[in-house]
Structures are given as structure tokens and as C-alpha cells.
């Protein structure tokens, strides 16, 4: 067994943890939790109530809404608070599809959407809707022309994400939105991963509906947003009280709304420089990992990608075991491996970009954040080759490869854009 790896595992508990899973969730910032706490303590009133405490809460809620609307370049009445990105996706898609079913029951989305979109589409299929799933290329890009080609007279809604959560690819949603607008089809975009990382201006992007989630941008888990273009009518998902302009019942989570607004404000303030900084770290990481670990490829697009996202495939090994070793070395990362998903399927995104299942199982997603510095990258670059080497040592596939019994799917030198055709042909 490799002595260096053992030593580093032993030393890891003395070092700070390295959180490399910002695409999964982020730690709420201090300013954000401070504000949140103050709202919980001093502004606990029900915003619908008719007295001082209620008015105060309502004011905070509306100021938060206005501030977010300002950042998105939209009207406050176009912003609706929800409980998460998933709710926003469900509401937007079910709400629009059901509201327009008199005109048609055909919907369009892509194969690489988040489950909040895909499973919503499947639920609608059970209701009798027909859904076209657009394919993506091997870097995860959707060709807007395929959207154009898929639109039919009975198409009522297109939903394409702004940025993919696994491979980080940025989609040309402005072009897709323009096509939809021309065709008089509603366009929804899941921008959960984009908000806080990239400028998001629903109007410029030709979006009618857009989903966001606070916990991806250093606000807490459990608050989301739906942008709904003024005048667009969709069905409610949560029927109830008169909250949120009668569009979403439920006593408002004022504290989290304020936290979202604050987190968004902070993200906007530093966005340009932070984005540049993260792209620098990301690109250094990608280059160094591919160079130092043989048979490694980058997944997703080399530069049309989220500033914080690096996604690798390491041949011959499985992703969960990578995560386990990394965890014991102090890193929190994620994988598209079936074994780390509660669903036990390998990532539908990796399969959708044409990756053979045997390679998809060996993926690793590293998503950095605003606390990430050069030190974390340096440290990671020491550890990752040890981890991969150790697991390959154990791998019967790697042994077969070394014995010449198996042809590698990723060449030794790896790369940013390795094309793969088919798997090992073993069954």
C-alpha cells in the first residue's frame, strides 16, 4: 500500500476541511445568517397581519423582493418566493403546461435537465402531455436549431436550463428564448446554478419563467424564487391564502426571503472579480489534474462552463470510492456514480453526453466557491493522483488494461475534449 497516501490520510484530520461541493449547496455567509437571525427575532410578524409587527414583516418581505427584482432587472411583482428550486421548477412547468392545455399538450425540454424538471415532465406525461427531450452534444450543449425543429403547433412550453449542475455547461438560452418568443411558446429556464455566478437578466435572456434557489448562492436551503413575466398566467401549485399576489399560499418565510436578498446582493457586488478568480482556479485545477492523472478527461465544455465547475472522468475506477478516499483526506466532492445517488442510476447527464456507463461511474465533480483559495487547489493536486492510483491498484479493470486485455477508452494523456465511442464491450 502506498505510504504517502496513508500518511496524508492520517494527517488530514488536523487540516481544515476543503469544501468542494458548492454546486450541491453552500454555507450561508455570516452577513446572511446575521440578518436572518435578526428578522427571526425582531420581525416575526405575519406579513398579512394588520398591525405594527405585520407591517414591519411585510416591509422586509417587499424590500427583499424589490432588491432581488432590481438585481435581475425585472419588476418586483414578477418575483415570487417559493420554498426551493424544485418548487419553482414544478410550479413553472406544471403551472404553464396546465394553464395552456387548451392550446396544446406538447412540451420540450432537454435530456440533461435537473430531476426537478425531468421528473416534473414525467409527471405531466402521466397526465397526458407529450414531451420531447432534446439531445445534447458530447460537451452538453443544446443546439438552438433542435429547439426550432421540435416546436409544433401544439407546443406550449420549452424548458432548458441556463447552466448544468453536473458538468457546468452553459446553454444558449437567449437564442432558445428568442426562438420560443417568435413561435409564441412559453420559455422557462432553470437558472438555479447560474444565479450568483453569472449575470442573469431574464428579459435579455428572453425568458418568461425562471427558477432560482437560495442555497446555491450562500443563502439557506429552503428558499427559492420564481420569475414570472408580468401578464403571463400560470396555474397555482400551492392553493391557499392571498400571499404572493394570490399566486402562492403559505405564510411567508420572511427571514429566508431577506437572507436570499442579502446573499444575492453580495453575489452581485463581487461577481465580476470573483468569477474571474474562480475561472483562474478552475482552469489551473483542470489542467493540472489531467496532466498529473493518466486516463483522465474533462466533462462538459472547456469554457462555456460555470466558473466554479470542474468535472472529471477517471478511467478504471468508481466514483463513490473516490469520494470516500477524498473525504478521509478532508475533501467534500461529488460524483455522478450510481452509488452516490439515492436512485442508484449513474448520472443521466453523463450518459446524455454520450459517455459509456463504465466511464460515467468514475466521474468526480469539484465545485469551488468563494472560500476556495490557491492553497486548497494545491493541496488537492497533491492528493488526487494518490487517490486515483490507489483505487486503480485495486481495480481488476486496470489490471486487465495493464495486461493488455482491455483497451482504454480515455487515452493516457487524457484531455479537455476526449471523444468516446462505446464501452469495453464486456457484459
Amino acid at each position, binding site marked *: 500500500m502506498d505510504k504517502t497516501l496513508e500518511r496524508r490520510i492520517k494527517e488530514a484530520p488536523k487540516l481544515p476541511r476543503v469544501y468542494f461541493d458548492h454546486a450541491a449547496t453552500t454555507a450561508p455567509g455570516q452577513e446572511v445568517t446575521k440578518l436572518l437571525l435578526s428578522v427571526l427575532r425582531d420581525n416575526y410578524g405575519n406579513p398579512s397581519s394588520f398591525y405594527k409587527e405585520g407591517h414591519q414583516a411585510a416591509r422586509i418581505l417587499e424590500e427583499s423582493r424589490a432588491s432581488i427584482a432590481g438585481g435581475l432587472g425585472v419588476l418586483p411583482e414578477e418575483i415570487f418566493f417559493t420554498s426551493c428550486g424544485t418548487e419553482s421548477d414544478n410550479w413553472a412547468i406544471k403551472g404553464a403546461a396546465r394553464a395552456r392545455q387548451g392550446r396544446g399538450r406538447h412540451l420540450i425540454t432537454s435530456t440533461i435537465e435537473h430531476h426537478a424538471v425531468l421528473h416534473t415532465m414525467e409527471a405531466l406525461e402521466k397526465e397526458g402531455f407529450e414531451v420531447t427531450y432534446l439531445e445534447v452534444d458530447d460537451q452538453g450543449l443544446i443546439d438552438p436549431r433542435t429547439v426550432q425543429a421540435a416546436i409544433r403547433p401544439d407546443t406550449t412550453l420549452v424548458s432548458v436550463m441556463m447552466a448544468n449542475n453536473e458538468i457546468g455547461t452553459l446553454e444558449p438560452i437567449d437564442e432558445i428564448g428568442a426562438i420560443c418568443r417568435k413561435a409564441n411558446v412559453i420559455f422557462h429556464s432553470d437558472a438555479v446554478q447560474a444565479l450568483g455566478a453569472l449575470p442573469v437578466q431574464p428579459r435579455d435572456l428572453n425568458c418568461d419563467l425562471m427558477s432560482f434557489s437560495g442555497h446555491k448562492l450562500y443563502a439557506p436551503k429552503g428558499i427559492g424564487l420564481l420569475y414570472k413575466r408580468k401578464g403571463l398566467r400560470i396555474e397555482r401549485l400551492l392553493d391557499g391564502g392571498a400571499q404572493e399576489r394570490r399566486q402562492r399560499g403559505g405564510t411567508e418565510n420572511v427571514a429566508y426571503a431577506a437572507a436570499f436578498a442579502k446573499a444575492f446582493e453580495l453575489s452581485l457586488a463581487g461577481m465580476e472579480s470573483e468569477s474571474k478568480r474562480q475561472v483562474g482556479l478552475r482552469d489551473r485545477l483542470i489542467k493540472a489534474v489531467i496532466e498529473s492523472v493518466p486516463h483522465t478527461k474533462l466533462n462538459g465544455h472547456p469554457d462555456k462552463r460555470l466558473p466554479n465547475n470542474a468535472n472529471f472522468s477517471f478511467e478504471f475506477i468508481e466514483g463513490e*470510492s473516490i469520494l470516500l478516499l477524498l473525504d478521509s483526506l478532508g475533501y467534500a466532492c461529488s460524483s455522478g456514480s450510481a*452509488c452516490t445517488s439515492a436512485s442508484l442510476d449513474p448520472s443521466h447527464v453523463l450518459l446524455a453526453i454520450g459517455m459509456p456507463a463504465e466511464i460515467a461511474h468514475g466521474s468526480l465533480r469539484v465545485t469551488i466557491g468563494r472560500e476556495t483559495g490557491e492553497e486548497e487547489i494545491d493541496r488537492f493536486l497533491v492528493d488526487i493522483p494518490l487517490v486515483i492510483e490507489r483505487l486503480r491498484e*485495486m481495480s*481488476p479493470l486496470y489490471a486487465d488494461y495493464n495486461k493488455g486485455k482491455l483497451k482504454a477508452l480515455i487515452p493516457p494523456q487524457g484531455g479537455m475534449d476526449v471523444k468516446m465511442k462505446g464501452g469495453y464491450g464486456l457484459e
Partner: protein
Amino acid sequence: MEYSEKVLDHFMKPRNMGEIPDADASGTVGNPICGDIMKMDLKIENNIIVDAKFKTFGCGSAIATSSMATELIIGKTTDEALDITNQAVAEALDGLPKVKMHCSVLAEQAVKKALEQYYLNHDMMTPERQAKFEILGQNEHD
């Protein structure tokens, strides 16, 4: 989904990892599309398993169950080894998360695949033994 200390220990310090070049029996189960392959090499003397080594492509529990399985069978007779079930492997690891039980099935299968080869090569397959290889017909993923 969290692993027991024991699973983690076997994952981090796998016992009997490697290959036996002159193995008396060898079995490989699983497939890379499903995300796990386990190869088990056995050295057998007088029907006693004197050494076992594994190589595994798979998740933490696949590696830990491989490792534990080798520990459980070394020193046992082949017939005793045949009686080691996936539950026994999982229990020896202080349990596995529910969604991971299939990995322990894989370990039982790998041992049996090797033993099957051994019995067949040595013309020792009997109906009673044969009955214990049923699990090899099973798909480990359901």
C-alpha cells in the same frame, strides 16, 4: 447513507487485496456498466482455502465486502466457505446501508464463482453443492 466504522476500515485498509498468480480457482462477477466488478483468486490446499485475494472496481461497500469476504473464507474448507452468505459478510461489517446490500451479494457471488470453478475442475460438484450456486444465476442489481 453512511457506512459503519468497520466498512470504512476495510475500505481504507483492504485486507488481501491483490492477485494470486498461480491461483487454484478464480472468479469474476459484476460488470463495469453497472459499476462494479469483483475478482476473487483462491489458493486451495486439501480443500482448505489457504489464501484469497481480490481486486474490485466498485464503490466503498463493494471494496469492503470483498475484503471482509476474503477474511471470512481464509482457513475455511471450501464447503464451509460455500455456506457464507452475503448477510454474513454484511453482518461481519456491522451492517451495510440498505441501498448497498447488493454489494454484499456481489462478494458472495465472487467467492462462489471461484469455488464453482474449483469443484468443476476437480470433478467435485455434487447436487448438494450445486444447489448452493443458485445465487450465481441472480442479478445482483435488484
